């Protein structure tokens, strides 16, 4: 597939990094010095203006299958998509950062005028806000993801000393039915567990299971079903959207924001939230407002340093769950190193959406677990021989986490029979995704 990416910033690099091994990627940017970021990749770098049709021709838009505009300028992104659509029959996607663009595209009548030119508008901050709200809703969970139209759920927990499933082989653990352990992270390494793996306190564990069975798991970890008190530091777009989404859950939301004018707007838009004007790192304010009683702290200012400080302070105050926004992807590992449970970047979430949108090779890269593991959706090719899970020879370091057959989703065990046409949800490490794809390719070849 030929992919043209306009914008060689962080998002552009992340997308190119995920695609360059398997696709023909061209990156275009106004600034030549950005080329350095792409030198280690197999991509073509073109210097030029993404909104200029002749420059786009040079980048090869005429032969492109997909066009992604992800500069930091919304106007350029929109113009670039319009220009690309005018030049060739190409799928276009525009990144935007401001509410008014999203509203404009969502408005009635927008479809007739511009909707055809831009196939997809992506607002990374909103994607992040959705992600955060989902995590807040499940008490103690550090990450959540839903697949197969919401029928399959993935949850990540950090195990505490009093938690279930500890200190015995997983084969003997009494997991709720329809739920399996898809992975465990201990000391920065991800392992796909087997029946003999033993979980310890401090491990982060990823569970996968049918959505309707996950409630049993959630209750094992947190008998209280809801997060009642949510504190949000930073009332920007992300903070506002998180609060807006949680408002329907009857949670007590407290937002701390420094800018007075912004506070007034927030107080106007969010009648059920308590808006405090102040600094999230002001310990006196946090104590006065009893922020330590919050069930969740969401640190989503624009400043990574402040988010880190607020998060560490919150952990120290004893808030059980802390969700932290990380603006720069490379800070993420750093945050994890100092003990931040759930560092989330809007860009990573957005890149994931791009990959899903592209539908690469009928393989969906559904989600990545802290960059250490991936969930892929593949169909077991028609014509393959059916066989038991333990017999079909899936590659090492991979696990069939769930199978979708027609409309039903279930969690397999070793004796489950895989049939042609089944959709397999496979958990594996990022280095191994190629092996999984090759394995499936081999199965298909063997059956021909």
């Amino acid at each position, binding site marked *: 597939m030929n992919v043209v990416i306009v914008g060689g910033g962080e998002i552009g690099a992340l997308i190119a990094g995920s695609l360059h091994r398997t696709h023909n990627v061209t990156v275009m940017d106004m600034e030549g010095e950005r080329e350095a970021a792409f030198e280690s990749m197999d991509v073509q770098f073109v210097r030029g203006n993404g909104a200029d049709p002749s420059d786009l021709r040079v980048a090869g838009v005429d032969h492109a299958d997909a066009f992604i505009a992800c500069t930091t300028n919304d106007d350029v992104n929109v113009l670039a998509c319009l220009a690309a659509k005018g030049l060739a029959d190409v799928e276009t996607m525009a990144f935007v950062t401001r509410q008014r663009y999203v509203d404009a595209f969502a408005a009635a009548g927008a479809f007739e005028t511009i909707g055809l030119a831009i196939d997809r508008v992506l607002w990374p901050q909103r994607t992040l806000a959705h992600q955060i709200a989902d995590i807040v809703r499940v008490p103690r969970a550090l990450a959540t993801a839903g697949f197969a139209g919401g029928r399959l759920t993935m949850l990540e927990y950090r195990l505490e000393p009093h938690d279930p499933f500890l200190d015995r082989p997983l084969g003997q653990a009494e997991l709720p039915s329809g739920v399996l352990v898809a992975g465990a992270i201990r000391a920065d390494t991800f392992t796909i567990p087997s029946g003999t793996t033993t979980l310890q306190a401090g491990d982060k564990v990823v569970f996968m299971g049918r959505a309707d069975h996950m409630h049993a798991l959630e209750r094992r970890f947190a008998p209280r079903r809801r997060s009642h008190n949510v504190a949000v530091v930073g009332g920007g777009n992300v903070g506002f959207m998180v609060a807006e989404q949680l408002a329907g859950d009857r949670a007590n939301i407290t937002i701390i924001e420094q800018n*007075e004018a912004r*506070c*007034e707007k*927030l*107080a*106007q838009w969010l*009648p059920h939230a*308590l*808006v*405090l*004007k*102040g600094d999230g790192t002001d310990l006196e*304010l946090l104590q*006065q*407002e009893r922020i330590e009683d919050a069930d969740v702290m969401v640190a989503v200012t624009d400043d990574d340093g402040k988010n880190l400080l607020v998060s560490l302070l919150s952990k120290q105050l004893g808030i059980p769950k802390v969700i932290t926004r990380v603006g720069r992807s490379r800070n993420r590992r750093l945050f994890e190193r100092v003990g931040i449970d759930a560092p989330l970047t809007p860009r990573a979430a957005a890149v994931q959406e791009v990959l899903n949108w592209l539908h690469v090779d009928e393989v969906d890269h559904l989600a990545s677990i802290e960059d250490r593991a991936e969930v892929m959706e593949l169909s077991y090719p028609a014509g393959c021989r059916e066989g038991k899970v333990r017999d079909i020879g899936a590659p090492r370091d991979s696990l069939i986490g769930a199978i979708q057959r027609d409309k039903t989703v279930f969690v397999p065990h070793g004796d489950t029979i895989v049939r042609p046409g089944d959709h397999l949800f496979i958990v594996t490490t990022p280095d191994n995704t190629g092996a999984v794809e090759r394995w499936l390719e081999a199965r298909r070849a063997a059956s021909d």
Partner: protein
Amino acid sequence: MRGRFAPYVIGTGLLALSGVMLLFTFYAAVVRQPMTGFLLSAALSALFGAVLRMLGSSNAEPTRREALIAVLVSWLAVPAVGAVPYAVTAGFGPVNAFFESMSGFTTTGATVLTDFAAFPSSLFLWRALSQWVGGIGILVIFIAVFPQLAIAGRQLFFAEAPGPTEERLTPRLRHTATAVVTVYTGLTVLCAAAYAIAGMPVFDSVAHAFTTLAAGGFSPNAQSFQGYANPAVDWVATVFMLFAGANFALLYRGVAGRPREILRDPEFRAYVSIAVVASLALTVLLLGVYGLGDALRHGFFQVFSIMTTTGYASADFAQWPQRAQAVLVVVMFIGGSAGSAGGGIKVVRWLIIARNTAREVRRALHPRAVLPVRLGNRVVPEDVLRSVAAFITLYVGLFATSTVILVMLGADFVTAFTASIACLGNIGPGLARVGPMVDFGHLHVASRLLLTFDMYAGRLEVVTVFVLFTRGWWRLPRRRPHARP
């Protein structure tokens, strides 16, 4: 074109009055009643009206000061000329005639009339119509003029949900004003028909319909609604008083296809809730006096009558137990909705004050919180909060001062207290010696003049009138040579 807007408006008002007076002259001639009063009034208003209108100009761009002058003077000039028939035909002295006329145009309903039998029917009809006309006048001022001038927080009450505002102001105002007058007229017609069907004589039905929708309260019957001894009529009146105390602009939106807006409106909800709770409380307190059916009827009728500032009486409530009277005194201070012809402080202002108080209490707990005062989906701006607070302070201050002066001039305390609030709130009857079955004529002449001023000030939202007592008002704008660009 400075200084020519006010004369135009006042002149137009007087010319309109002269037209009405001519009609009444004909009516009096047809029913063979004395017509000199009406004729004189028509002549006077035509003369002054024509002169003022010639001095004025319609396309003058009014300044704030001029708009205020137009309102303040119109509301004095029209009642003054409208008082002529009372003086000429019924033989009232000038103070009493002006009191009665002011009580009419301000939709108050307080009267100095003692001998109802000697009063010709044409004059009863004029009295009722003056309230109806006063109702239209005040609705237009409340909905079109005062919001523009940001008086007593009114800029907020009629602002529709925020949206694109490229539409020019004038057409929208004209549209709203037309709509409101349409609803007002339509409800008046329905009300008259309903009274007649319920068994009231046709003349009385029409006279009462005029004063019901205006939240006025004049009745051609000396005993007000008690005189008909007809429960059906009382209930019809209760229902139409409920409408009369609501926001007419809101009612119009409801009729024009958005009925849910009525139920969602915070002021309407509070208005109905307060009225119903007070009615039920009064009903319970009246159970010792009446049976359940009558207690309910009098309870609802009297609370709606007093709260909407209409002032009808289905019974002589001045004779009721004190506990029951206390409920009526409380609702005297509440008033109807901001977009009705009723007077008083108005429900929406109490709502704003209540929310503001709740906010201050909450702020004690969260000193750093940003807490907007909300009314429905909208946030009440701080300047509106200030205006409303100032309005209530001024209102209560004027009420207290008036009470004290009335007591000094020889009235007993309950009479003075209720006469002041009844006139300032444009309600009409009070308690004790100004109860529904007695009149204001026995009060000291200075008291009657003061109460006339109370009616006038209360009608024009107090703040407007008190502008006259500021030094800045009387400092004339200095004429400067215009620098031409």
